[in-house]
């Protein structure tokens, strides 16, 4: 269970990006966060694994308080949180297998990491997961030889290799074409069911959020102003979430939300 309470994030001395935010995610549901760019979605996600340092508040994952961890403890906690990125964030010049195994870096010895002699269990698991998402035959290819959808599948497998207790996805489909984008969303939903894994997705595409997620959280100006089933997201709620932000703003955010 992920429990966020009274979370505040302020960059420098300006207006806080996240304002006393509370959110609880239980069980293996797929939760999407929607909102116009600048609403704080990305910051919220990055506060959870501390890629962004929260200003105050508390975040607990399965009873571990994340906000106060340092050094090795923080790294141990991060192993339990998988993350999928908008830009895939793969290491282009490494093979798909090395990219996938880099999800295990928090577990394996430095020597094994440097010599690329991964534990047998990890290799078996990698093949299984890659088979599951349909990229096993690319294991020896360099990551930059793959198409966008395939690269995002590598990103997903890398996160799953961590054996995470929660999966964070930051605009996982924003760099993909519509068809591939739906495939990735479907994949995330199915994997969540199969692995009994809670998934938290930042997403711009409201249609995909409705279609593929169990619960929608709407953010605006650093606050949660909607939290309900996808069916409950009506025009009035949409207006509240996106009002005043011109369509162009939303479209621009597609490219540069991060």
């Amino acid at each position, binding site marked *: 269970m992920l429990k966020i309470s009274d979370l505040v994030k302020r960059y420098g001395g300006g207006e806080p990006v996240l304002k006393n935010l509370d959110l609880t995610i239980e069980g293996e549901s797929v939760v999407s966060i929607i909102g116009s760019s600048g609403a704080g979605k990305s910051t919220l996600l990055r506060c959870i694994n501390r890629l962004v340092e929260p200003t105050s508040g508390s975040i607990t994952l399965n009873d571990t308080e994340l906000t106060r961890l340092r050094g090795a403890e923080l790294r141990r906690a991060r192993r339990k949180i998988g*993350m999928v*990125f908008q830009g895939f964030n793969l290491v*282009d*010049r*490494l093979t798909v297998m090395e990219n996938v195994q*880099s999800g295990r870096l928090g577990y394996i010895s430095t020597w094994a*990491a440097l010599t690329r002699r991964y534990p047998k269990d990890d290799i078996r698991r990698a093949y299984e997961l890659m088979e599951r998402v349909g990229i096993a035959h690319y294991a020896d290819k360099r990551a930059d030889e793959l198409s966008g959808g395939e690269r995002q599948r590598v990103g997903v497998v890398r996160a799953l290799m961590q054996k995470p207790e929660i999966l964070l996805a930051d605009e996982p489909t924003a760099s993909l074409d519509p068809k591939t984008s739906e495939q990735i969303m479907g994949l995330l939903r199915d994997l969540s069911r199969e692995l009994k894994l809670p998934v938290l997705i930042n997403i711009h595409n409201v249609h995909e959020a409705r279609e593929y997620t169990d619960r929608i959280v709407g953010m605006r100006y650093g606050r949660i102003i909607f939290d309900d089933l996808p069916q409950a997201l009506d025009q009035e709620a949409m207006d509240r979430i996106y009002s005043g932000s011109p369509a162009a703003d939303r479209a621009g955010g597609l490219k540069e939300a991060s």
Partner: protein
Amino acid sequence: MTLSDARRDDWTRFSLKQRLQRYAVLAFTLLAIAWAVSSIEVIWAWVWDAPEQMGDLFGRMIPPDPTNLAAILRVLWETVNIATIATAFAVILSLPVAWLAAQNTTPNRATLWVGRFILVSSRSINTIIWALLFVAIFGPGIVAGIVAIMFRSIGFVGKLLGEAIEEIDKRPVEALEATGASRFKVIAYAIVPQVMPTFWAVSILRWDINLRESTVLGLVGAGGIGIILQGAIDTFNWREAATVLLAILGLVILGEIVSAWLRRRIL
């Protein structure tokens, strides 16, 4: 301003301010040259004499004398060894320096400045000056040459590698930090693969440069073909000097061909 106001028969390439700037730059350049010409301590008779002297010198080089060719080629091979071994060690030693001197990998401010200090001192002191120092320490011979070239190369390779580290795509770094990998593993998996192409390109480039540099080490006693050249020149054996010069020319051209081939092969 309407069209009729403009005097259409008066066209100049530049505006007045641009022209003034250009004249100022030109005047400054001419002044600098005039100052240099007027105050440099040169016996002008020698200057007018120089072409004749050069012709005379080259005349005495013909035909090149190949009697010592075997010895020359052996020392030429030694020259290649100096360049290669020194480049190899310099490249390895420059890795930690580059790591220190790159803003995004250095542990803290102090280490950043240590890294930069090493780079600057290595780079600003020429190989020959390093060689003077190491000949004093190790005595004349190729060891001093290797160490001198190494010291000069560390700064060159380290600077370019450090810049490459600063320019990497930071997104994979973020992704690996999110997996809970340690700092060292993040460097090994997200940064090292990204700077590998630069690493090879810079190493090959430096090897090519070092090949040229190692041909002159002998002039200060630090080994290599320069010793034979110096000997030939000192004894006015110009025909042997010509052979050595041709050998150096061949070596450098061969080096360029090899490094071009390696670059195509590896990159």
